[in-house]
C-alpha cells in the first residue's frame, strides 16, 4: 500500500510531470496577457466605433464584425504566421540586396538575412496578441454598448461644468462604463480562458500537449513507465482544471462587480 503511494508519488513528480505542471504558466500567462490586450483592443475598437469620423467608425465596425465572423482557431493559426511574414517582408525591404535575393533558394523569406526566429517566448506573445485581437473584437462590442449605457445626464453635467473632452471621457464616461461592461467582459474572459487550450497548435508545449504525451501508451521501458493509453485521465484533469478556473473567475467577477458598482449598481440592477 505505502509502496504503491510511494510509486505513484514518484511517478507523478518525475521530470516529465513537473514539466507538465510548469507548463501551466504558459496557459496562465496567455490568459492574463491576452485578456489585458483584449480590453485594450476593446477600448480602441469602441473608441473607433464611437468616432465622429466615418472612416474610423467603419474600421471599428469592420474589425469587430469580421473577426467575430471567423472561427477563433483560424485567426489563431493565421495571425502569428501572417505577422511573422509581414515582419520578415519589412526587414527584407530594408536589408535584402539583389545578390542576397539571388542566393536565396527557398520560397520564403526573400533573403536569409530577413529571417526572424520564433521560439516559445515569441510564439507565446504572438498567441496572446491573437487572443487579444480576437476577443478584443468581442470586448469592442461589450464596451461600445456599455459606453452607450452611461446615462446622458452624467456626461451633460460634466460638459456643463467645463470638463474637456478627454477629462469627460476618462473621469466620467469610462469610469462609469466599467460597471455596465463588467458582465459582458466577464463572458469574454471566460472565452479567453477556454481559448488558451489552443496554444499547442502554435508549437507551445502547453498543458494540452503534455497531457497528450504523458497519456499516450508506452511500450518501451527505456522511455519510461510502460502503460497503456491513459490519455483520458490526463484530459479529465484539464477538464476539471478549466471548470475550476471558470468557477473561480465567476466568483471574482461578482466581487469586483460589487466593488465597482458602488453608487451605480442599484441603477444597473434596477
Amino acid at each position, binding site marked *: 500500500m505505502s509502496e504503491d503511494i510511494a510509486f505513484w508519488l514518484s511517478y507523478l513528480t518525475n521530470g516529465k510531470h513537473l514539466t507538465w505542471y510548469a507548463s501551466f504558466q504558459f496557459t496562465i500567462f496567455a490568459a492574463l496577457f491576452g485578456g489585458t490586450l483584449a480590453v485594450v483592443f476593446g477600448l480602441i475598437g469602441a473608441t473607433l466605433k464611437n468616432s465622429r469620423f466615418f472612416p474610423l467608425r467603419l474600421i471599428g465596425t469592420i474589425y469587430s464584425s469580421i473577426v467575430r465572423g471567423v472561427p477563433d482557431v483560424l485567426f489563431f493559426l493565421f495571425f502569428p504566421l501572417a505577422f511573422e511574414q509581414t515582419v520578415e517582408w519589412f526587414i527584407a525591404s530594408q536589408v535584402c540586396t539583389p545578390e542576397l535575393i539571388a542566393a536565396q533558394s527557398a520560397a520564403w523569406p526573400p533573403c536569409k538575412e530577413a529571417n526572424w526566429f520564433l521560439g516559445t517566448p515569441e510564439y507565446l506573445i504572438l498567441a496572446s496578441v491573437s487572443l487579444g485581437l480576437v476577443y478584443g473584437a468581442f470586448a469592442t462590442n461589450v464596451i461600445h454598448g456599455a459606453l452607450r449605457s452611461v446615462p446622458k445626464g452624467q456626461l451633460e*453635467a460634466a460638459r*456643463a461644468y*467645463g470638463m474637456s473632452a478627454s477629462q469627460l471621457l476618462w473621469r466620467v464616461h469610462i469610469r462609469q462604463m466599467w460597471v455596465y461592461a463588467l458582465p459582458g467582459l466577464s463572458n469574454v474572459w471566460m472565452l479567453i480562458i477556454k481559448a488558451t487550450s489552443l496554444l499547442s497548435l502554435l508549437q507551445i508545449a502547453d498543458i494540452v500537449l503534455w497531457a497528450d504525451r504523458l497519456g499516450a501508451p508506452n511500450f518501451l521501458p527505456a522511455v519510461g513507465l510502460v502503460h497503456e493509453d491513459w490519455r483520458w485521465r490526463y484530459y479529465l484533469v484539464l477538464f476539471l482544471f478549466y471548470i475550476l478556473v471558470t468557477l473561480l473567475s465567476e466568483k471574482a467577477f461578482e466581487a469586483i462587480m460589487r466593488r465597482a458598482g458602488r453608487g451605480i449598481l442599484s441603477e444597473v440592477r434596477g
Partner: protein
Amino acid sequence: MNMAQAAAAVAEKWPVVAIRDLHKSFGKLEVLKGISFAASEGEVVSLIGSSGSGKSTMLRCINMLEVPDSGSVAIDGEEIKLHGAGPHRQIADEGQIRRIRSELGMVFQSFNLWAHLTILENVMEAPLIVQKRAHGEVREEALAMLAKVGISEKADAYPAQLSGGQQQRAAIARALCINPRVMLFDEPTSALDPELEVEVLRVIKVLADEGRTMILVTHDMEFARSVSDRVIFLHQGMIEEEGTPEQVFGATKSTRLKQFLNAASHE
C-alpha cells in the same frame, strides 16, 4: 434681499448674461424663434411657459449644451465664439467655452450627480479638475457649501443613497462650489415629491436673498413670484411677456399668459 447689494446691482446694471436673437430648430421643429434678454448682476430671472415652449432649450443655449442656429450669447461681456451656420454651427474655441462653462453653475432637473463619486467628491470635482484649484482649499469650501445646503452629514455617501431632495441640494452645492457668476436652474424641483420640493426651494430662496445672479426655469408660479426680480413668459419660442412679478402676475396683459396662469393655478 440684502438691500445694499440689491441697490448696488440695480445701480450697476452690468449685464452678466446677454442673449441676442437666439434661433434654434430641431430638424423641422423651430423651438426658439428669436429670443433676446439680459440678466444683470444680482438679478434673479424666472422663465415660465407651458411645456414645449422652449424654456429648457433656452437655458441650455446659455452654456452651449445646445448650440443655437443663430444669435449670440455673451457672458460677462464676452461673446461665446461659434462658427458655421444653422444646424452645423459649432463651438469655435474649446478653451473659451470650458472657461465660460466653469463660471456657469448649472443645476439639472434630474440632478445628474456623478453616480460613481461621493457627494463630497462630486462637489470638489469641477474646482479640482477644471479650475485646478488646490485640494485643501477646495475641500474646505466644499464642506462649507454642503453645510449651507444642509447635507453635511451626507458628504461621504453616494448619490444613490440620498433622497431626491438631498440629491438636488448636493447638486446646488456642486454648482455653488465653482463660484459661478450665474446659476442656471432647469426646473430644479419637478423631479421631486412635493415634500422634498420644499427643501430645495428653501435653499434657492436663500441664494436669491444673498443677491446671486440666477436664471431659473420653473413651473411653480408661487415660487417664481416670491423669488424673482424679473419674470419672462415664453410662448412657442418667443418672449410673450416680460416684467417684474407684479407686472406679470398682477397686471397680465397677454391673453395667452392669462390662460397659462389660469391653467397653472388649477393644476
